[in-house]
Structure formats: C-alpha cells, structure tokens
C-alpha cells in the first residue's frame, strides 16, 4: 500500500489530575502538561511498523485543533512520520465534525489505511473512527490488538467483550487501536532535531467544506461524587472481619 494516515489528538497528559472549574463551565486545562492521546501514539507506532516492514511508503500525521497542536505533530514527526497536516481550529469539535474533516483529508490524500486511537482520553467519546468509516463507506476494525496487512486486505484482531474477534477487511479501511496493539517507541534527541526540518502543512476547515459547529449543547460540568472516607485496619484479622461485615467475601 502507498499511504497511511494517523490522527494525533492533543489532550491533557494521562498522568495529570484535571479539575472541573468551580462554576461548572468546563475543565481547567490552562498550564497543564499536554500530550499526544495515548491511543493515537499506538496508532502511529503501528503505522511506522507497517512502513518499516516495507508494506507502506508514507505515514502522514494529522492533528485538528489550536496552533499548539503542532507540538504533538512534531512529536509524531520525531517518532518517524514522514509529514504532518495541521487543521487549525479553536473551540470544541464533535467527533462527527472531526470525521468529516478527516474524510476530506483522506480523500485528498487517497489514503489506503487510516489508523486512529479507539478513543481520546479527554472526551472519551470513542466515535471518530467508526464515523469516518461510515462517511467514507469503507470497512472499520475497531479496538485492534493485532493488525496484519497483505496487499489489498488487512486481518485485524479486535478486543471485544467476548474475547478476541478476528475479521478481514478490504483496503482502504479505518482501524482504531486498543492498548495491546503495541508499545510505542521512545523519541530520541537526534530524531527531535531531524523532525524540526520536516514539513507541517496547514489545511483550513473551510477548504474542506465542513461546518465545525457542535450540535449537542453541553450544559454543565461537575466532578464525580466523592467516595466515602475509608477505614484503616491494623492487621489481617481486622481486614478479614471488615470484609465479612460488608459481605464482600461471601
């Protein structure tokens, strides 16, 4: 195959504790460490491995969002992507709008394979890959833990509730990644330097003919209900007693 497109979403780092703003208007993200969505990093790693096996020629990373998304695109380039596309946008985007933007890029680039994370760890929607596949009228293989490509098809092992489901899809197709697919490589300093010379192209949402306005109204944000304060026990006897009192050990 010729080309793989990978989406990289800029999200609050998985190890940062977020806070809901006291007025319930949103989540306070100012000044927090931002990273590539972990599932997207896995998507890029998989694309790079396919290219390194000689089964694809080019890996293109795409990010949609504010100017700062270029940091995540630079990370993607440093990991080994060949080039990057940034679609500037300030404000919320729903997965359907993201899927429509990606459809424009995927069509323009004539991609053979699109690999996305199974969900972003901020909005936790888990929709974009499926929506893109629907709009593109192409197969989807979500929650992938193994991906083998051979010419015009891909064989994908999916992590489903009942176990591991194996499906075969014709290319082009959309694959979304689960955690088990691979372990992303670490970026080395020389690669970061080299990545600075790689191109980042800018494509506007308007040029793709997409209306980015959200349709759902988000009315309120709130923190989760706190857990009840727990008890500390002195020893295993007390531990077992407390467990039995609560009926936890049957």
């Amino acid at each position, binding site marked *: 195959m010729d080309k793989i497109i990978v989406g990289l979403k800029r999200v*609050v780092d998985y*190890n*940062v*504790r*977020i806070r*809901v703003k006291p007025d319930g208007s949103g*989540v306070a993200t100012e000044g927090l460490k931002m990273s590539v969505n*972990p*599932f997207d990093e896995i998507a890029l790693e998989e694309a790079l491995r396919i290219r390194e096996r000689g089964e694809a020629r080019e890996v293109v990373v795409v990010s949609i969002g504010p100017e700062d998304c270029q940091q995540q695109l630079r990370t993607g380039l440093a990991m080994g992507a060949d080039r990057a596309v940034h679609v500037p946008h300030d404000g919320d985007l729903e997965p*359907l709008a993201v899927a429509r933007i990606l459809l424009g890029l995927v069509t323009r680039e004539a991609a053979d394979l699109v690999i996305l994370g199974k969900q972003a*760890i*901020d*909005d*936790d929607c888990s*929709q974009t*890959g*499926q*929506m893109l596949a*629907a*709009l593109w*009228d192409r*197969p*989807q293989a*979500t*929650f992938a833990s193994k991906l083998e490509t051979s010419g015009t098809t891909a064989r994908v092992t999916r992590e*489903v*509730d*009942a*176990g591991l*489901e*194996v*499906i*075969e*899809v014709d290319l082009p*197709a959309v694959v979304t990644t689960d*955690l*088990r697919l691979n*372990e992303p490589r670490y970026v080395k300093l020389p690669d970061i330097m080299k990545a600075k010379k790689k191109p980042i192209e800018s494509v506007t949402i308007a040029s793709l003919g997409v209306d980015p306005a959200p*349709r*759902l*109204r*988000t*009315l*309120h*944000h*709130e*923190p*989760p209900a706190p*857990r*009840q304060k*727990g*008890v*500390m*026990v002195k020893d*295993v*006897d007390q*531990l077992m007693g*407390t*467990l039995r009192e609560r009926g*936890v050990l049957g």
Partner: protein
Amino acid sequence: MSKVLVIAEHNGNHLNPSTARCLSCAAQLQAGPADVLVLGHGAEAVAREAAEVAGAGRVLLADQPAFAQPLAAMLAPAVAELARGYTHVLAPSTTFGKDLLPRVAALLGVPQVSEVMSVEGPRKFRRPTYAGNAIITVEVPDDLPVVATVRNASFKAAGKAAAVPVEAWTPTATAPTHTRYVELRSGGGDRPDLQTARAVISGGRGVGSAENFAVLYRLADRLGAAVGASRAAVDAGFVPNELQVGQTGKIIAPEVYFAFGISGAIQHLTGIKDAGTIVAVNKDGDAPIFEVADIGLVGDLFQVIPEIERRLG
C-alpha cells in the same frame, strides 16, 4: 411524540443482559414501550427472549445470513434505515454498541451521546469524560434524533414481563462485502475476565518481579477473582499489557478490588473509581491509594497475602 428504538445485543443464542439495561434507560425517557431490534441469523430464540423484557413494546427481527455475526459495517445500514422512524436510538455501551452506533449516527448525519449514565430529561443526559473525572450534562437539540449508548454499570437490568409480539422486518439496504468475519477466540482460559469479574486482585511495582506475581495469581484463584496490574507493573515487565487497569488500560467496576503494592497514580485510580469496595495493602502508609481505599492496611503484601489465605481456610 417520542418513539424509542433499542438495538439488542446477543451472541446468536442468548440476549446479552446489556439489552435489559438499555430498556431500563429507555423507560426513563417517558416515551412508552420501546421497539427492540434484533439483527441476526436464526435468532428467533433471541427475539423471543427480548419480547419478555419489561419495557419492550414490540420486537423487530431482521433475520439475514449477513447478520450472523455482529459486524458494524454489515448491521449499520439496516439500523440507520429503521432509525429514521424514531426519536431515540439506544444501544449498550459495550464493545458491540460502541462499534456499531457511531457508524449508525454518521449514516444519519447526527452526533452521538456516548455512555449515558443518567437521564435528566427526554433529551438531556449525564455522561462521564476524562475517565469519569468530569461528568458533563449534554442536551440534544429538538431537531435531531437522540442517538446514544447506555453505560452498563449505571442502569439496573429491566425485569421480565409478559411477552410482546415479535415481527419480522426486512431492510432494503444490502450489506457490504468489504468486511468478513473470521473467528472469535474467547479470552483468558478459566480465570474470569478483568472487565466482568466480581473480584479483582491487582498488583503494582511493589510486587517486585514477574515471578512474585504468582502470589497474586494464587490468591485470585482461591477467590475466583481476575488479576490486574498498575501501569508501573506493566512497564516494569512483570505482567502483560492486557492486565493493565487505569485510564489507558481497562476501566473496571468489580464488587471488590484488592490493590497490593500499588501506590495509586491518578491514572490508575481513574480506572477503579466505580469499584464497590477498594482494599489497599501497601508498605508505605502515605501512598495515595489509601485516599481512595475503603479498607486500608499498611503492611508487606508478602506477609499479608499468605495470612489472608490461611484465614480463608
């Protein structure tokens, strides 16, 4: 007037309990009995089972060879075709529903509400974001159908009721040929699945090595529990990735969760917040895990676990 369609999940022989949970969510929409769509092949028994769940007004059975396996690409065009006659379309937020419903929503050209955890009004819902650290209330505007997945852990399964009629329904859309089912392999042998287990025994960096995890496996087998791990234990190579519990691993809600030698990084805690009882055992009394634990014990897991086993008899 509201009209609700629930997409049934099943394995060809039996209805998945998540469907009854969807129906109890549907009942809160105050729209009257819901239609339940069963897509399958030779799935009459499933349709009859669905007909006896409280809240179902009618079961529509779309029986075709193309629907023999739950492949989103095959099912979505049919669901979208039927969905046009409804104000609400619900599916469970299981891997089945998560795979299928966004594809349906995109074919309808409408947004989806993922993981509904409570119904605040016929078009207003609460759902978790940031792995449950921020709960948002969203409203679907009047001119759009509500397309939503329903969080299993948030709704009790609807009970049984007198059987309602089962009607055959034939979609006009033809299923695509670009997606082919190969096989389903069931997971992890005899040990219960991490996502559905009643009890989970989890270990962190404090376990020390892959060999030492045997202690946890032994206790898990005694209790019929699943085994999990923190990201630190996975990164240290003690256990494979698939055992990771946390925001980037599995988000679980067992009745009881035992954390042995887990310090309690934020991303781990977000994965266990919905557990019934959290038990933490750690040598470090200042470990953050004790802030969320229901029962905490400062101690060495290698002494504590054998003592627990002795008391289990």
